[in-house]
């Protein structure tokens, strides 16, 4: 083996230019694969972090909510949700895995801004949250993306009537000015209308909301909007929400409809004076790798306690995540495939030329007693070495370029994000990718050498010795 590698190494150096070209092809393959793979890994980590911060790893719903609940969240509420949370939180298997467990209430309705000269309303998609739990969830950063958020003073447990709305919804409701939003055009003055009936209804809604909002501070200067929903019993319900601020949501459809409010307010809107339920119990785990086992344990608990509940993970709740992962995976596979084919042909070409040039040498060593397998091993070893050296150099360059990019201060807006984030290439933090790319390329180079190596091994000794 020592002699084999010694001869292989010297033969590689013997044809320096050819070996350099082949090694460069392997290095370019490693570089492209690792840089794109590192970028994709960063995208996946970023998307997963974003999703887990927003909706946790797992959510417990009433059975059927996932398929049918969006149309009528009130019907799919979880009864005695505090008991369910206690059951989950006290489970010895789940407890150490859980970082945050928090109830949420989804709701639909119409939001309107009827203050001053405004007269705008818009359907909304609302979510009721416990603000302090939201803050804790937004600190989750298992993959070290740096995309954590400090506690948001605009939305806290201390104010049951204050919430956040989407940037687009703020624009639609004419709240850009009152909220001091930049890059948010003010609403043009509407033309005079003779539709007195509509303005009378809007005034009534505003008055109703003011009567219901006992906790609202009448002296507050913060803008507020009126929310109209249907309760679980079908009756209309109106409440006022103080708008603490606007938050861009990345996706326009959500941005134009989003309202986050305290859980108690959302429950009041949906259930009125009836039993307050929730639509989901969100579980954020310490580590994503526990998701499968946590889900299995949850299903066991649900089954053992005969609960009419179901569990969904963030991938199911946000199909966009899966689509992006599949898209980037497909591009990565395509790049890896192209690079693999280039390496394959480069090594086959080089090794075939080596066999041609060394035919007489092959005849000599065969005459001396080297077996066919020995000749085959010799050329395979050379393919392996070219692959190993090329892949190692390519990986080293990938580490270097990734470090430069990561410290270069570049930013970009990833799919689904509203704000620019630092551009990052996760090569160093993806050992599986590095090892996989290295092993894959070395394997391709070794396999590529097989064909010429077999040709060399099959040469007739006499013919090889005659070769000039």
């Amino acid at each position, binding site marked *: 083996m020592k002699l084999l590698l010694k*001869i292989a190494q010297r033969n590689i150096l*013997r044809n320096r230019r050819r070996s350099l070209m082949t090694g460069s092809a392997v290095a370019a393959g490693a570089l492209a694969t690792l840089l794109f793979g590192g970028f994709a890994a960063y995208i996946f980590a970023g998307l997963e972090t974003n999703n887990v911060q927003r909706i946790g790893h797992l959510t417990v719903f009433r059975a059927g909510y996932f398929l049918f609940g969006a149309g009528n969240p009130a019907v799919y509420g979880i009864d005695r949700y505090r008991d369910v949370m206690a059951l989950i939180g006290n489970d010895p298997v789940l407890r150490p895995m859980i970082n945050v467990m928090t109830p949420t209430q989804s709701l639909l309705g119409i939001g309107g801004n009827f203050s001053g000269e405004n007269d705008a309303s818009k359907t909304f998609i609302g979510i009721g949250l416990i603000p302090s739990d939201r803050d804790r969830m937004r600190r989750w950063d298992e993959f070290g993306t740096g995309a954590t958020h400090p506690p948001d003073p605009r939305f806290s447990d201390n104010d049951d009537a204050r919430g956040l709305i989407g940037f687009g919804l703020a624009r639609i409701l004419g709240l850009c000015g009152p909220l001091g939003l930049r890059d948010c055009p003010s609403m043009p003055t509407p033309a005079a209308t003779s539709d007195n009936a509509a303005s009378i209804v809007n005034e009534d809604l505003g008055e109703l909301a003011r009567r219901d909002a006992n906790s609202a501070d009448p002296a507050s200067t913060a803008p507020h909007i009126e929310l109209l929903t249907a309760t679980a019993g079908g009756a209309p319900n109106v409440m006022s929400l103080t708008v603490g601020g606007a938050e861009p949501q990345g996706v326009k459809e959500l941005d134009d409809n989003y309202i986050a409010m305290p859980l108690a307010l959302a429950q009041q809107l949906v259930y009125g004076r009836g039993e307050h339920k929730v639509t989901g119990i969100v579980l954020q785990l310490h580590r994503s790798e526990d998701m499968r086992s946590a889900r299995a344990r949850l299903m066991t608990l649900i089954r053992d306690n005969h609960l009419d509940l179901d569990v969904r993970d963030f991938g199911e709740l946000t199909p966009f995540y899966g689509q992006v992962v599949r898209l980037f995976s497909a591009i990565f596979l395509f790049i890896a495939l192209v690079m693999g084919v280039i390496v394959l042909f480069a090594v086959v070409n080089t090794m075939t030329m080596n066999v041609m040039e060394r035919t*007489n040498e092959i*005849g000599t060593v*065969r005459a*001396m*007693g*080297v077996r*066919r397998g020995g000749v085959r091993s010799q050329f395979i070893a050379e393919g392996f070495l070219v692959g190993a050296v090329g892949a190692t150099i390519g990986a080293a360059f990938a580490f270097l370029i990734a470090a430069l990019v990561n410290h270069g201060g570049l930013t970009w807006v990833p799919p689904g994000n509203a704000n620019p984030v630092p551009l990052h290439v996760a090569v160093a933090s993806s050992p599986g990718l590095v090892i996989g790319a290295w092993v894959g390329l070395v394997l391709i180079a070794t396999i590529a050498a097989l064909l010429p190596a077999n040709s060399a091994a099959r040469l007739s000794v006499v013919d090889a*010795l005659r070769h000039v």
Partner: protein
Amino acid sequence: MPSPVLSGISQAPARASAPDPAAAVVRLHQVARIYQLGAIAVPALKDVSLAIPYHRFSMLIGASGSGKTTLLNLIGCIDAPTRGTMEVCGQNIAELDDNATSAFRARNIGFIFQNFSLVPVLSAYENVEYPLLLIGIPAAERRERTLAMLQAVGLAEQAAQRPNELSGGQKQRVAIARALVKGPQVVLADEPTANLDTATGASIIELMRRVQAESRTTFIFATHDPQLISHADEIFVIRDGRIVEHRTETRR
């Protein structure tokens, strides 16, 4: 008495059985070798029968295209006869598969080629050591025998040099050392002086003759040069694929 030339290499690897001095190291009976060139059959050897004795410096002499190299290839077990039977070192070669034939060559046969055929990426030392690696000689013994062999052919000083740093004569000396270092039963030399000038060729013949006499290894030497006949113990004249004359020199 230890040889001044081959001291240190007398411990040749043990063979399966010691040769009977009266027996032939190579025995061919009605051997033919026909090359098929498309539809045309070209007979290179025609029903050759011969017996080459042990411990002799035998010479195959004939013009170019007479079949010398084909005959050497068959004796060296790197080619197979189209028909006929052949024994080398008492072994019927037809009974061996490819791997066994390779192992047989590694242990019993040394080659010296016209164009030297050294492995270009190995030094003179490593080229000579190579055959010993193939037959699994331990490192210490390998080193001892390699150095002794290089000393024997006068190339101790050039041990670290690669073939491209050696002259033609030096390359052929390395080839001789490589062929002899494992202590083979037969050394085959195909026109070993053809690529050398007259003086160097003569010194190579002299060297081969000397080491053969001291090691008592059987040498089979193919040449088209009648002037080299004087060095031979056994002479086989080959013409058009047939042995047309065999004589034994009695001067020694």
